[in-house]
């Protein structure tokens, strides 16, 4: 039963009036409402948990956060706190778009049939955006404190991420009374230590694993054995905390995924390149579980994920196939792992700074760590018959291309040109050479 009725009038701490329009959802610590603040329709989180209502430290942190700029546009940031009224208080933020799903829903395809990533690129994008958000947050001296599958809203087609519940963020080393969620919480936090950037890194590794693999990294034959048919909180704290064994641990094979119980771990692990497997093995190793200083930083994840994005291959081996993609790292597989057919590995752009980016049909071209595509690989029909791969300029500025013989041609926005080995593309600020 929502505590605030439609029409309830509240006030922001600066006195601006706020009207409750309707109830949206209830969560762990409170309820979310649709409200009107001046002429904006916004969301209001209204606390119902006594621990928070009576916690002046929490309120002070929340007020402080409201006054800060969000670390990036991905954060649904608290924009203002209400006055204390009707026995509680809350904060306003922008509304969540309906086409996004909580990460937790991506694990329940039976109840949310639309909540699954449509491509590896969408997974990479989601993972990158989460790492990006967190490395910025950590650089700014904050830690998230309660990082779990309920904090992210993700678009299943694009992989775009919105980070919510930012009321839990606190200055690193300071605790606002929020600990974390079982299955995501670092073991030291479970045993009472204050969450910090290192415990965030533990949770981050689990969140990233679940973006790629769906199943939980610590679920395997041990956790689903008949011994734990009725799992107690103490067992849970041990198997998902200090005694956790990564299901693909390099040394300890005791908790390998079970074909039937953890089909996603089995299926997607087989499709992962070695470099990201290595990273998961390092980030979730026994040592990293126990020693916070050994955990993988968001910036390290970001570097790897950017490389995988640059290398990603899209495939449409047969005309009737939908466009699909797969991850590669270094060596290209002989056939597409998704459809089992020969595929076109496209061309590589070798940039003047040494970085490379593979262009294939339908794949967007991103510069460095940007999320805004400047171009797309396109399949074109050649006048003399046959097909070829072209690059479309979807940016707002013209590019120049220089043929091996030295002739220069301008590629206006919205137009495309056929990719041929050894031509040079002059993008604004950087050049790239086309390679097979």
């Amino acid at each position, binding site marked *: 039963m929502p505590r605030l009725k439609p029409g309830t009038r509240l006030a922001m701490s600066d006195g601006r009036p706020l009207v409750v329009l309707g109830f949206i959802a209830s969560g762990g610590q409170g309820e979310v409402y649709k409200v009107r603040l001046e002429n904006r329709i916004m969301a209001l989180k209204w606390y119902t948990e*006594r621990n928070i209502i009576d916690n002046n430290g929490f309120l002070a942190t929340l007020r402080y956060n409201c006054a800060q700029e969000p670390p990036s546009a991905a954060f649904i940031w608290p924009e203002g706190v209400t006055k204390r009224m009707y026995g509680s208080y809350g904060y306003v933020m922008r509304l969540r778009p309906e086409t996004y799903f*909580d990460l937790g829903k991506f694990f329940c395809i039976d109840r949310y049939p639309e909540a*699954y990533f449509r491509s590896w690129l969408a997974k990479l994008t989601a993972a990158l955006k989460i790492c990006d958000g967190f490395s910025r947050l950590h650089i700014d001296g904050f830690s998230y404190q309660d990082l779990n599958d309920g904090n992210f809203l993700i678009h299943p087609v694009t992989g775009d991420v919105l980070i919510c519940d930012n009321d839990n963020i606190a200055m690193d080393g300071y605790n606002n*009374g929020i*600990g974390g*969620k*079982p299955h995501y919480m670092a073991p030291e936090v479970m045993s*009472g230590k204050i969450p910090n950037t290192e415990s965030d890194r533990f949770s981050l590794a689990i969140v990233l694993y679940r973006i790629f693999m769906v199943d939980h990294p610590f679920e395997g034959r041990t956790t689903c054995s008949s011994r734990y048919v009725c799992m107690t909180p103490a067992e849970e704290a041990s198997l998902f905390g200090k005694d956790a064994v990564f299901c693909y641990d390099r040394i300890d094979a005791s908790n390998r995924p079970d074909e039937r119980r953890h089909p996603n771990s089995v299926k997607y692990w087989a499709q992962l390149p070695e470099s990201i497997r290595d990273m998961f093995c390092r980030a979730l190793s026994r040592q990293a579980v126990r020693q916070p200083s050994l955990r993988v930083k968001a910036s390290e994840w970001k570097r790897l994920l950017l490389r995988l994005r640059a290398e990603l291959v899209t495939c449409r081996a*047969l005309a009737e196939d939908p466009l699909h993609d797969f991850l590669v790292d270094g060596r290209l597989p002989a056939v597409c792992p998704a459809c089992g057919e020969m595929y076109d590995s496209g061309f590589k752009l070798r940039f003047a700074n040494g970085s490379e980016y593979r262009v294939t049909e339908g794949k967007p071209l991103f510069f460095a760590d940007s999320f805004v595509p400047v171009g797309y690989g396109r399949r074109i029909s050649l006048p003399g018959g046959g097909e070829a791969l072209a690059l479309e300029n979807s940016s707002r500025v013209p590019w120049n291309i220089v043929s091996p013989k030295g002739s220069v041609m301008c590629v206006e926005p919205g137009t495309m040109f056929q990719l041929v080995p050894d031509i040079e593309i002059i993008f604004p600020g950087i050049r790239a050479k086309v390679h097979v």
Partner: protein
Amino acid sequence: MALIDNRPRRCSCRRMNMFYLIDTSGSMNYNGCIDSVNAAMPEIVDILTDISSSNRDQGEIYLSCITFGNDARMLYDRPVAAPDFRWANVRAGGLTNLEAAFRMLESQMHRSSGLNSEDGHLRPAVILMTDGDPDDGWESALEKLQQNRWFREAYKIAIAIGANAGTKMMKRALTKFAEPLDAGGPMTIINISDLTRLHEVVRFVSSTVSRLGSQSTGAARGVGSVGEEINNAVRREFNPVDGVDIPPISGDDRPWW
């Protein structure tokens, strides 16, 4: 090879079973007790659905409802996932056959019956609501129940309803029922003398116990026992209000009457 299906399968998740044992004896008609129950349950199902779907990964909530008057009945013959559970109003009349309710609960608490999820379970919860003296026979049924490993592990919460909730027999039954056994911690017995609060208390207890495995827990509070968590939460939430009286229970030495 044509169509590529790289969709995931559902993640396996453990079940959190909640068993409600609801007294529907004749006395539940006084003061609209049974009406309060009928009003409260659909909303509780909604709340549990909400909790279950936002945290399903950490435990999918399944509900069972056993009512007892002259005999014991189950609303569904097996536990039902919260989103699929529909409450059907119950009527009060007859005796207080707690024995039958305990026996029915016992028959449900087996791998071969109500606790048969292939994905495993979390500790179940049993919430008993009653307003009067149980008929003879409950003791031996409870003894049998207490041998059941699932019941031993379960969170047990007793709710005594009504102003004169508190004959010696009833208190004995509730105390014996609510003994934490293997779940540990203090026992939870809530005495509601103001009926208008029944709805709220049942809702509160249900959402608190169902969330214990799934919700973010305060590190500052440490990982306390469930009995403690519920008792503290109920005190925090309801103590300032007249009409809800939480008996001071310290477990072993001080009986609550």
